[in-house]
Structures are given as structure tokens and as C-alpha cells.
């Protein structure tokens, strides 16, 4: 494995984990966002 391969691995892992964390945050907030966007109480 050379430096380019390592760089690619790091980016793939970072993207995967980052996506999972952001999506978890989305799931946490989604209900509140939908309620607020529909003008309902949170």
C-alpha cells in the first residue's frame, strides 16, 4: 500500500463515518423540523 492508497482509505473511512454521524443527527432532528416547517408546535 503506497501513500495514495492510504489517502484513499482515510477518505473512504472518513466519508462513511461522517455520513453515518450526520444522518444520525438528521434522524434526531427530522421530526422537529417537519413540525416546525408545518407550523405546528414542537
Amino acid at each position, binding site marked *: *500500500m*503506497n501513500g*495514495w*492508497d492510504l*489517502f*484513499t*482509505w482515510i*477518505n*473512504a*473511512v*472518513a*466519508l*462513511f463515518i*461522517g*455520513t*453515518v454521524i*450526520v*444522518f*444520525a*443527527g*438528521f434522524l*434526531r*432532528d*427530522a421530526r*422537529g*423540523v*417537519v413540525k*416546525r*416547517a*408545518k*407550523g405546528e408546535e414542537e
Partner: protein
Amino acid sequence: MPETMLSWIDLTVVITYMAMMLGVGFYVYRKAPSFEEFIVAGRSMTTPVLVCTLASTYYGLEDLFGTSEFAYNDGVVAYFGYSGLSLSIFLFAALVLAKRLRSENFVSLPEILERHYGRESGLISAVASFAYSIPALSLFALGRVCEVTFGIDAWIGAMVLGAIGLTYTLMGGLLAVAITDAIQFVLMMTTLAIGIVLLMGDVGGFAAVEAIAPEGYLSPLGAMPFWLLIAYVATLLSVLVDPGFYQRIFAARSGRQARNAILIAIALWLAYDWLVTAGGVMAKAAVYQGALPADLHSNDALLAAMIFVLPVGLVGVFLAGVLATAMSTMDSYSLVAGTNLSYDLYRPLRNPDATDRELIRYTKIGIVTAWLSGFALAFVFDHIMALWVFMATGLTSTVLVPIMAGVFWKGKKTPLAGTLSCATGLVATIIFYVVIPLLGVENEIYGTYIWSFSIAGVSFDVWQEYALYFTLPMSFLGFLVGNLLGEESRRTPDKEASA
């Protein structure tokens, strides 16, 4: 017509994804939302929601396949020379623009100009924004993916999948777009991360690329002409005037959440861009190894490589991600175009006191108009990428100078300065794009027009991609002349803030 290369498992995954998109439209549908609820989702978006919608909207298939094509042909310069610089412009937007724009409670990009300079600037920029937001490129890309993977005619694929995007956008406005964006975000990012790692293992990593790489292929600045790189970078200024990007800032719960979302999205884009670049260069190695066909079109390199390397089931998830990439761009810009028609053209021109119900009705008419225009252009016009570059240049030339002056310049700003700046930028773009093909010759290698001439024995080459170097100074000149000759408006956001 090619036959589909997919298994029934992959097709089921793709069909399930389509059904989910429509389901979201029904879930968020509300009979009588307010205009602000429909257009900026009631300014309710938190950081994670914004990250999902920013990341998936701003990266369309032109990035997925355009960047991988760039990498396939020219190597890692696609990342270091192009993507890296574009993300630095996003960084500027996050740190300098986001909070300032969110605090003003704008609804659309032309409204910034309308409030700073008056009605005329708002109207000109609305026309430029509408033209830019016509989703021709994403509908074309959607059709092409359908043709390559499902074996159906491109126009049929674009019509069916485009109609699904159109339906949920009409039903739920930005809220439906944002929620579908989140699903699309996960599909896009995760399948790419998995697929590129598998592809790297399959071709033998970068050692295999080094074995076949032409000179400069793995050099960060590559072998591209420096001025062409500069010209590409100039087109990236469109980030600073992108109406879809602005709409998401306006929809944030606060300026801080908007800034944080852009910063997180930048980090994800950095990783995503590298993986797309790596996919392009490894597809090249796969072609040399005979794993992919020798006559593979560079634009299809990444798609072909991923279908080759991913197992059954994950191919379906990846394709859903690819379709999601195009749909998330198409739905967002159709909504922007609808807002331009209703809020930025109909309201100031015909009915300043329009009710929310009227505005939403005209927004929906605008969404459908933009979608139909995009569909017609996508399958009638041959040079779809050139058309998009023209639209992006037109919008940047029209609004970049007056928006930056409006937001950052605290001195005298006259309505005439805004109008002249917008008008000269737009007219200069049209003149440049008419004159260069007339005076120059078409370069088939770079797919552009170049006008060569010499002055006092020194030869010059003017590429069509240099348009912004001509149009932005013209727009700035228009601003200066208008500021010199015009009279200051009585009401601007600056004055209201200091009052």
C-alpha cells in the same frame, strides 16, 4: 437500445428507492402551507438537516461524472487543481457570508438585490437565476444513466424519474426536497466510499495506476494548461451566487447553524471529491488491464468501474445513489426557478400584495415551467454542458458584483449602480458568447472556441472559458458608473439596520 445489465435484486432496490421518494412527498404534504413554509421550510433547518441537503444538492452528476472524467483523462489534478479550489470558495461562503445573509431573513437571491438596489436589479437577477436553475443538465444526466444501466431510452428515463422528483417537490416544497436529499445523501456517500475501496483492491491500488500513468498524471497540478485551470476556477465563482446554496442558508434555523453545516459539508466534499478522483484514475488502470472495455467513454468511466466491482445488491444501492445525485439537484433547482417566477417576478411586476396562496400557486407553475424547459433543452440541445457553463457565467456576471457590494460595501449604493451592474454583466456575457465563436475556431480537444490574434507581434489566445475575466470587470464598471450618476435610495438594509 442497450439491454439492462442489472439483476432483479438491483432493480428492486432502485424501485424501492423511487417509492420512498414519493412516500416522502405524501408524508410532508400539507394542503395550505404558508409561502415561507413552502419555500424555506419555515426556516426550521438544523445543522444535520442542512448538511444533508447541501451536500446532495450541490453535488450533481456533473460532479460525479465530470470530476471522474477529468481525473480519468488528466489525473489527480482533478482534485488538487479543481475541487480543492472550489471548496476554498465554499469556505469563504461559510465564514463570511452565511451569518450575514441569514440575519436578513431573505427568501431568494434576487431579493437581496431588490432590497439593496430596488426593483429593477431584482428583476434582472431573477431572469438570470431562473435561466441558471432550469434543470436541463440534471435531467439529461438522469436520462443518460437510465440508458446506460436500465437499457431504456434516455428521454423516457428522464421523464419517469424526473416526474417523481417533480411530484414530491410540488407536494412538499423545500421540506420534501430536504428530506429526500437526506436519503439521497446517505446513498450517494456510503456507496461511493464502499465502491472505491473495492475498486482499489480489484485493480491493485495506485501501484497499478503508476505503472500506466502518462507524465503528470499523478502530479497535483498535472499537465493542463495553466490558463485553462484558471478559467475553470473562475467558473467556480458561481458558488458565491448559487441560488440553491443561498436558499439553504435562508432556511437555516440560525446563521450559526448555516455556517456549521457548510463547514461540515466541506469536510465531506473533500473526501467525496478525492474518492471520485481516485475512481476516475483507477478506472483508467482497469481499462489498461482489460477489465473494462478499451473504447470506454471517459464520461462513463466511474459508472462502468463501479458496476464492474460492486456485488449484486450494492450495484442497485449505488445506482439509486447515482439517480439520487441527479434528482436532488433537479428538484432543488426546479424549486428555485419556481421561487424566481413567483416571488421575484410575479410579485414585484404584477402583484406586490400577493397572498401566500397566490405565491405558492405561481411557484408551482414556475416549477413545472422550469422542469418542462429543462426537459426540452436536455433532449433537443446538443451541447448541454456548454449551455450550463453559459448559464452559470451569465448568473455570475449579473449578480456577483452587486451582491458582494450590497453585502460588504457600507458606503454609497444607488439603485442605478445595481441595475447597471446587473445589466452590463448580463449583456457582456451574451456579447462574449456570440463574438468568440464568430471570431475564433472550435478546438475539438477541449470542446471550446478559441480566438487567436496578435498585437505588435505578440500572439494571444482568448478561450470561451475566459468570459468572466471580461464580464466581471464590465459589471464592476457598470456599478461604478451607476454609483457616480445615480441617487441613493431612501431605504436599504444598511440604513434600516443603523436606524
